[in-house]
């Protein structure tokens, strides 16, 4: 394991270059507020206000100019945006670099350089509004769900389905399951395309953060839960089917896999099919497999998940 740490340290130290701010050309906040009184009047409610009023490290103590850069030339030609880092309208990489000067240290942003949002040119100011935020926490430009729905239109539709996680009701946020700043590779499915899904502290799928009874471990795991993830059977945003299942009738869901076709499953002998005279599938009690296979996510006492 020491090799892993050594490699990380070596790579981290190699490009080390301290970021410097300040010096000639800086005017200070008192000058800024002369021409931007409304922004200044509201700024005391902004979390960034702390970089002015508190004894932050030297590179963060320049108030407005911490983000906007030295403004010494800006008053001479206020309409020339090349003389000030106006943020808005700047190339995505510039925006990202500006914010990450302070925010890169957050663990939640460890994958921001490779996230799908960054790849698609969705950077900080697409979602956050530093001066006109609608939420004091995280300075979001809109309420979180509305912000996400702006681009994820089909997800908006899913959360209006009859069965859905209570995002529209406000009990759950998108960020309970997703990290918009990028996620680590998942530990389920093929381990790629993280789709910004967060993981629990123990690196399980985000679902078990709330659905703790499904986390296990179990003596008898239902392998797809662990190997392919909860989405094998569930559509987590919302569906027209009870229990967020992918199919309305339970047995049609189960029988898609349990066909006894060789080659599938952990043994390669196929996933056992209930083709027996016992399972009279035309009878209603056998159409809900989980009526009997009650602990379908995993059981400690029964290999068939019957108790």
């Amino acid at each position: 394991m020491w090799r892993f740490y050594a490699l990380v340290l070596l790579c981290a130290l190699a490009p080390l270059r301290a970021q410097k701010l300040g010096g000639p050309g800086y005017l200070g906040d008192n000058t800024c507020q002369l021409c931007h009184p409304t922004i200044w009047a509201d700024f005391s409610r902004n979390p960034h206000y702390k970089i002015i009023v508190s004894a932050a490290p030297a590179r963060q103590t320049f108030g407005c100019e911490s983000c906007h850069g030295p403004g010494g030339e800006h008053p001479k030609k206020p309409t020339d945006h090349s003389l000030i880092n106006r943020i808005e309208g700047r190339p995505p990489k510039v925006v990202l670099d500006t914010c990450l000067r302070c925010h890169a240290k957050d663990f939640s942003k460890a994958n921001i350089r490779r996230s799908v949002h960054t790849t698609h040119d969705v950077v900080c100011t697409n979602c956050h509004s530093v001066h006109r935020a609608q939420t004091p926490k995280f300075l979001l430009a809109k309420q979180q769900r509305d912000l996400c729905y702006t681009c994820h239109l089909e997800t908006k539709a899913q959360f209006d389905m009859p069965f859905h996680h209570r995002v529209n009701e406000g009990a759950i946020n998108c960020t309970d399951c997703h990290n918009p700043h990028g996620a680590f590779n998942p530990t389920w499915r093929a381990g790629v395309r993280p789709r910004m899904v967060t993981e629990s502290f123990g690196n399980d799928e985000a679902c078990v953060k709330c659905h703790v009874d499904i986390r296990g471990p179990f003596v008898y795991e239902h392998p797809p839960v662990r190997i392919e993830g909860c989405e094998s059977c569930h559509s987590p945003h919302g569906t027209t089917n009870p229990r967020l299942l992918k199919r309305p009738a339970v047995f049609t869901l189960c029988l898609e896999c349990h066909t006894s076709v060789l080659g599938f499953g952990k043994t390669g002998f196929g996933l056992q099919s209930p083709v027996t005279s016992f399972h009279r599938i035309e009878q209603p009690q056998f159409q809900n497999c989980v009526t009997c296979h009650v602990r379908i996510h995993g059981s400690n006492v029964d290999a068939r998940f019957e108790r």
Partner: protein
Amino acid sequence: MSWKQPHRHRRNGRDRLAAPRWAAALGLCLSLSLLFCLQGQEMDHRTGDYRVTDSFEFGYRSAFVSGDRDMYRSSVNYNNGFRLFDGSLRLTSNDGHGLIDEINLTTFGAGGDPYQASSLRVEKNRFFRLDMGFRIINYRNNLLSISGGEHGFNTEHILENYDLTLLPRRRVELVLGYGRSNQNGPSLTSQNIDARGEPAFPRDRFFVYASNLHQVNNEWRGGANVTLAGIKFSFLQGLNYYKQDPVNSLDALPAGGQTLAGGLIPAAFRRSDPIHGSTPFSRLNIHSDANGWFSVNGRFVYAGGSNHFVQDQNIANPNPVTGILVTRQDFVLGDAKRTQGTGDLTLSFQPGERWAFSNTSSINQTRITGASSFVEIRAPANPLDPGADQLFFDLLSVRLITNATDANFRLTPKIGLYAQYNYSIRRIQSRELPEDISGIPTGVPLYSFNNVENSGVAGIRLRPLPTLSLLGDFEYGDDSRPFTPISQNRFHGATAKGQWKWKSWLASASFKESHNRTQAPFSPLPAFELAPTTGSDYESRQYSANVGWSPNKPYGFDASYAKLHLDTASGILNFPVPGLPEVSGRRSLYLSNIHYGRLTFRWEIRQRATLFVGYSIVKDTAGGEGQGPVIPVVSSIPAPLTPFVRNYPNFVFNGADLINAYPLTYESPQARLSFRLNKRLDWNVGWQYYGYHEKFTSLQNYHANISYTSFRWSF
């Protein structure tokens, strides 16, 4: 155990969740209104060294429900009563010299709504930051998906989270955290034991009942974030402790607890099956972002979980032939363990504004082991099976190695290209070996399953106008050996998105298509194979569009439309009735065509009133199939299938394929009118309708009218 059922009155065939006491509510609200009007404070004002912003909305909500009330409670669940609809309080320091620089409280639904959430942040810059969150989610848990809902019970889930950061934004930050999840609610379980031919406990009639899980999960966390020479070290150590303690007896089961029609109800039954477990975890992250041109992130996570369990079950039932009471006392005890280690290393390189590269390598190893020993005491002894202690052992191990490489190239400020290549190799090992009590395995080998997946994405970003952005990409992938018949095998997908933003106008549209075809890796098929196809075919297409206009005042509207199309075809054995080759040899299709629309409109009338109206509809047309309850008239329909089709008209046998489709409509219009009584007080009145209508059966349809009146007060 709490099996709360709502108090209700039935009037003219309608369920009313409680008398809404309109007069009392209105009177109280008007009284409060007069009281508030006498107060003379600003909405956003300075008090001493602090600036205070607040808003609270308090009122009464009532619900009139007709139809399947249980279905309503499992999906909407608003009921009658007073509640704090919404509240926010924010104090911010003017100069950052107080004991506390910020207090931020938000809450909604407190007091009566089935969904309640509150959050609080208290912060003193560079000294501490405390974040607290509290949520309650109440719903009716319909244990069986399609059963008329008669076996559901209330579920209450309480989630709490507390995070304390000491010395935030300093070189050394200390983090402490606590999380708690508490759930009271039903879960199905059964008495079933392998009675080996004992007629007192018939295998096909075993006792299935609803049990309260009563589970609690506590999580403690502690760690530090250290910045040293520009490198950020983040360490977190935690302990997750889980327990569930269900105790069940025949007398304590709630009405309706027996869930299997025709199932056995034993003469006596008692069971206790506690599970206690813990999951300690450690996480170390090392990050360096050197001025944006090169960044490194390394992470290592280790989690070792274990659950210890015992199941003590006593059951008695007379032998239907001899009349002799037969008893079984079962003990199952053991433990399950899972260790999981994950390492990631990400290197990102941005040599300029045009190029960006990233590579992530990960390895994950999960190993689950467990032992479950089974002991049974029988009276009278079964001569056919004298019984023996058994020890079952199971192993599941997954090793996953992945690598993802991204390249991003900005050709011009208006054109960007990106590509990604993913490679993963996975090994799954499994062993299931019954052992006798002496620990001698019966010779089941260790199975090993390996597969390799390659996939790639290529895409383009365009910004032809400052107001217009377009994006399109295509993905293709191949997995050498899918784990299940619905796993990814040969898949591809395409995405196209466009967004136009001009002043207060926003228009966007998107298209997503994904397709996967899975084939069994081995051939020829074995003789006992009944399905004609040996995999599945999945195709999904999603179209969506949205137009919104939201000037600050006085109007605004938003309109959305989406079509979510899904069809799957597989050789699933929907009707695996032995001796019916004409049925078992068919394909099975599942069709879903969901149309979704939403329209909202806001109008502020002379700064004295605001009207908001909205309408949303979800309609699954299912391609015109499944419009029961008409039994399909198909000459070739096999006779034994007829009772099934009669019970489930959403299944159609068209002579060639078995089609299952579930058309339904779910609509919800709403309106809200707010009157500004003065600059601190608004009076609101609102209404929302929920209509759920299945076309394949009418058993679960419901209609609900939810209305409310409230006052929003800013002091």
